[in-house]
């Protein structure tokens, strides 16, 4: 412990759903699995498998988890997703569009003097490709992946790894995420947190309320930079 903590945190951004909009996958799920709504079911299955492996082991990287989740939903919906269709879906995951507020919100935060990094459960290779495609990569000092410690968020190791790599206490980090489970994991590891209320994302009653709750990154910038609402 260094004994002091900077008031200005280093912002640690989750990537999928927080910065990038997964709805670009909807037409593919409609095409290959018959219903666009299966995309949300698939992503929930991704998280379920990821959490199960994180708790009980052995470690599986996020790409393998995404594939396994696709197996589950195709079987559940009595569909057979061919290899090229599978590649189409998972390849599109690397080419998602950013949420409309991402570029402007990140720019304001960075111009406001805050340091920005990402921490995702995806591999670094996937995260780098995603951020480059979305045009957001230049905002971030580092792209961190839970894969480096072979335990996925919300286990504490990924958050601690980021603190260690940056040479700061976990309390110096402020995780920004659209998922309650990520917020809870960060708070449990000693970080601060901000919850972004993306459509359909809500905090549960068992997760401690984070220091910041915002509808998008502009509102978060308003709160963090202590400015009035943007004009």
């Amino acid at each position: 412990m260094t004994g002091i903590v900077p008031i200005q945190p280093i912002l640690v951004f989750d990537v999928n759903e927080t910065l990038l909009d997964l709805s670009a996958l909807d037409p593919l799920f409609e095409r290959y699995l018959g219903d666009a709504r299966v995309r949300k079911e698939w992503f929930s299955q991704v998280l379920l498998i990821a959490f199960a492996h994180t708790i009980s082991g052995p470690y599986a990287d996020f790409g393998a988890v995404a594939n396994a989740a696709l197996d589950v939903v195709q079987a559940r919906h009595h569909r057979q997703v061919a290899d090229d269709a599978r590649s189409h879906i998972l390849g599109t995951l690397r080419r998602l569009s950013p949420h409309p507020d991402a570029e402007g919100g990140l720019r304001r935060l960075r111009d406001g003097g805050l340091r920005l990094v990402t921490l995702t459960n995806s591999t670094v290779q996937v995260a780098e490709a995603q951020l480059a495609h979305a045009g957001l990569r230049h905002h971030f000092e580092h792209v961190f992946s839970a894969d480096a410690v072979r335990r996925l968020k919300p286990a504490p190791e990924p958050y601690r790894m980021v603190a260690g790599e940056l040479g700061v206490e976990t309390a110096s980090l402020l995780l920004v995420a659209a998922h309650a489970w990520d917020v809870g994991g960060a708070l449990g590891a000693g970080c601060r947190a901000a919850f972004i209320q993306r459509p359909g994302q809500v905090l549960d009653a068992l997760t401690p309320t984070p220091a910041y709750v915002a509808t998008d990154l502009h509102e978060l910038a308003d709160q963090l930079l202590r400015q009035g609402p943007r004009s």
Partner: protein
Amino acid sequence: MATPVHITAENFEAEVTRATTPVLVDFWAAWCAPCRLVAPVVEALALDNAGTLKVAKVDVDELPELADRYHVQSIPTLALFVRGQLVKRIIGYIPKTELQRQIDAAAGALSGDRE
């Protein structure tokens, strides 16, 4: 005052800058683990110095403008005010006896500050 005063935007001037005794202001936040080490130390100082030193606490999340005004960039930061002026800044945890010594030295250097 034997217990720390919770500072608000409304009472800062009255409790700190217009105080007749020296005031030790503890800048802290709920998420700051080192601040939890400092809290019992300043509470003990408030008791030990009742009548001669006021202890006040500023939550930097509640009053970020106050942290900005006094250039508090890291916490815990203890700021000693004498006659409304910030005369001593201590960043991070230090033991109670050393903190008392530094406060006495800073306040004593300004004669007549302690009653």
